[in-house]
């Protein structure tokens, strides 16, 4: 097993609204190995997205520690966390969130130029990635609203990859897409994982979950169970049954 790229110790996250406290994550200990395609599942309100955003440094924990390798990131300032995210993380959101006043290509380059001033290299890499994810050159200069949801999400994946992140975080990446577009996005993520890209994905969709090799199931802010599946192979019935059985066991 590879060394843990991300880990948490007694991670807690509490939200206070109107004097009420909601404990979303409770003393969570999680380890994510490099190269894994980790899928976080659970019922609504279980704390999936909260965990994802805490792990990615987008939100700070209330208590506990988060480590990126040996570096504790839970104590970093907001600006240091921003630098951490740009250098080590890539994000794919359910709502895609490309900046709608920029072309597809500009969205990607803007992220790339945050890390390096080598303009030529960024443009070149953006174009390579777009080609690699089968995004036709015709749409590079279009605005996000002018392309389909699937194309926009693949563009968002390119944006997430532009800085060669150690971890790609995906929050319900197929949630807003039709099944064909969703499959294309999942295929892309699977392919990236096969090439060594660490991915952490939140989903409540079984088809999406099948792509992962480690399933973490949350309920009421605690890890109920984990399931190691091995690498995804299309049509692997035994792997599919193992996941179904795990999820049944978790009460999904």
């Amino acid at each position, binding site marked *: 097993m590879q060394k843990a790229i991300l880990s948490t110790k007694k991670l807690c996250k509490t939200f206070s609204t109107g004097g009420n406290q909601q404990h979303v994550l409770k003393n969570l200990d999680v380890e994510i190995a490099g190269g894994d395609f980790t899928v976080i599942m659970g019922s609504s309100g279980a704390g999936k997205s909260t965990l994802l955003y805490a792990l990615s440094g*987008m939100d700070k924990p209330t208590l506990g520690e988060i480590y990126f390798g040996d570096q504790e990131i839970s104590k970093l300032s907001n600006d240091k966390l921003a630098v951490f*995210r740009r250098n080590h993380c890539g994000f794919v959101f359910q709502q895609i*969130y490309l900046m709608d006043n920029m072309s597809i290509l500009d969205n990607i380059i803007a992220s790339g130029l945050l890390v390096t001033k080598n303009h030529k290299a960024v443009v070149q890499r953006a174009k390579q990635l777009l080609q690699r994810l089968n995004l036709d050159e015709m749409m590079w200069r279009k605005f996000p609203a002018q392309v389909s949801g699937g194309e926009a999400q693949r563009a968002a994946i390119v944006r997430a990859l532009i800085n060669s992140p150690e971890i790609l975080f995906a929050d319900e990446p197929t949630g807003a897409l039709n099944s064909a577009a969703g499959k294309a996005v999942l295929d892309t993520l699977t392919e990236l994982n096969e090439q060594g890209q660490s991915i952490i994905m939140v989903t409540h969709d079984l088809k999406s979950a099948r792509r992962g090799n480690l399933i973490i199931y949350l309920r009421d802010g605690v890890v109920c169970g984990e399931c190691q599946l091995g690498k995804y192979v299309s049509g692997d019935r035994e792997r599919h049954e193992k996941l179904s059985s795990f999820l049944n066991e978790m009460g999904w």
Partner: protein
Amino acid sequence: MLAAANIHKNKSQAGSLLLFVLIAVLFLNVGLVLLFNFDPFFDKRAELHHAPHLTILQKAEYTQEEQLDWLKRYSGVNETEKLAVLADYGEYFMHESKNVAAVIFQNANDSSAMNKATLVGKSLPLEENGIYVPYIMKVAGDYRLGDDYRLNFDGQELHFTIAGFTEEMTFGALMSDLYRFYVPDKAFATFSAQFPDSQSYLQTARMEKSSMGLQAQLDYEKSFYHTEEMKNVSSPFVFALSYNAAKEARSTVSITALLITAFALIILIVSLIVIHFGIVNNIDEGMTNIGALKAIGYRNSQIMLSIVLQFTGIAFVGGLIGIAASQLMLPVLANLMESQSALIWKPGLDTALAFKSLLFIILLVLAVSLWAVKRIFKLHPLIALRGGLHTHSFKRNTFLLEKTQGPLPFILAMKQLMQSKKQAVMVIVIIAAMSFASVAGMSIYYNVGVKPDVFLSMIAGENADAAFVLKDRSRTDDVVQYLQQRPEVRKAFGYQHISLLSENIDVSGFITKDFEQREVNMLFEGRYPKHDNEVAVGYTFAASTGKKIGDAVMVNAGGQEKEFIITGFIQSMSSGGLNMMMTYDGILTIKPDFTFDQICVYLAAGTDTTIFLQSVKAAEGNIFSYAVNTKELIRTQFSQIGDIFAVVAAGMLAVTMLVVLLILYMVIKTMILRKKRELGLQKALGFTTFQLMNQTALHYTPIILIGTILGSSGGYFGLNPILSLFMRGAGIVKTNLPAPTAWTIITCVALTALAYLVSMLIAWRIRKISPYSLISE
């Protein structure tokens, strides 16, 4: 209900708009009260004091009984009066400076209806050595009751004890340079014996209407000053002064009022632009709400009315507070202007004017609001529910990151700027308007308060370092020669103001041997007169007679008349543009015994005028009626006006800064609210708060810079054309006031730097936007 909900939702926007309207109404009301209420106040005060509508001051030797008879018979005259006074040049002291003015001593015990001493505030019994001095000495000179008051009259030093201050309608304004002092019977008798040459008569008349004084003055001058008997008279103590001229000597009030009103109108325009922006922005932000309201059956008119009511309501409240605030500001300004007008003015609330200002602004806001909400008519409920997506334009993507190199925050800022051009244009227009007002205001202050030479030349004509008036005009040539030979003197020449009659109009004539020697260019077309049959005439004279260059005019001086050819047009506010320049040779053809008794002296650089005057007086003091340090006199006359303009200019600059702050606050806050998701996303991608703040500030900096440069350039280069337009009526066609280059540049830089810093400060709220809000909202 909807309007109230909208205001509650956008409290800070409502607050900013309220502040804009408040400032506009505040300045508008102050400006209008000063503009429209000073004249009635002056008239009321004049009535209270039973002030004359025509005042004639003449040395005793030139005063005849038939003059008073003429006055009594003149149509419209209700009442006349003749008083024996003493009049001559005198030196008075204000703070550290010594100034020359026409001084009139009047017997305080003389029975008078029109010229009695009108004391203000407390007074002391007028004892032997007591004196009543004009109120200006208190407000501009800081004199107090019981103070020692020193006057140099006709070369002799006199000391008095101040027993009271008089409010004067005809004399006593800093700009009029005529001061009347009341002394007790005994002192007056002593002075009459001591200064026999100063014995004069003050003839005054009250007419059916105060405005009739001006025509009476012109007719009097025609009847008595352009006659054979008076042809040799050029004494400054033979003149007639109308009620209008006395009022105009307080012109600072109206100039200040015009300046404030113009500024208020600029702020009003800015407020209307901001209100339009606010409404359009409200519609954009509340697009889905509008869609929902339409979907559930609200009519267009109901939705529009809610928005119009919201903004009109804000304008109404802002207007009311503005009017209340103006009542606090007015006494301060009136007090400031007291030092120039020398009248105690306590302007109160003018309900009618306040109501009109408020109504005017409400109607404008209503019109702008209706204009801005008209797009709701065309908005389909479904499109509104989708957030008005069809209105987005994807046609242009400027500053392509693929091709544009440079710092990322800067490129993204430029991208954002290009995508919000309408907003950018709005901000540019506002900043340009405010910068224009600031630079114009500062330029006026600079030219009035700091370097008034050019401004003064517009008003008074030639402005030498020193001026001398001779006692014996037969020695003029010798004295000029003597002065020219002194090492401190660059040049000295005779330069005389003389009253002439041309085409039935009384004009102020300027006589000298060679007009090229003058240092103030009063000519704006043609050339100065060179030969004995040539004249240059003032703009107002040319306009009222329809004369052009090359035309002939008849000129009368002391009964003799001759035709002169117009060689050029001159401009001067002196005598309202009714001026004429004539050569020494020219005046000799109609007034053969003319000689100069006034001499202009220009000193070498670095010469101390006061020391020079002392030295000349020590050597040849007995030959001068008076010698004056012109620059010092100007400084005193203009110091109070300078102070007033300094306050007004500082106020304008402060309001400009405040408007810039408010505009940036509104625009940036709106932008941050609108782009909250985008900013959160950028943070998620790794942009730091500082990068986003910098990006935001950089987005607005070029806009501010462009607006500032445009406005400042407008103020810098447009000052003279605009002033010329306004001052044409006063006889000035082409003003050439120097705009202060350094001040203008500093304003540009300061406004831009301020805008950047303020943008950064306002954008600091970006720190509160967390990437997590992407999922939590």
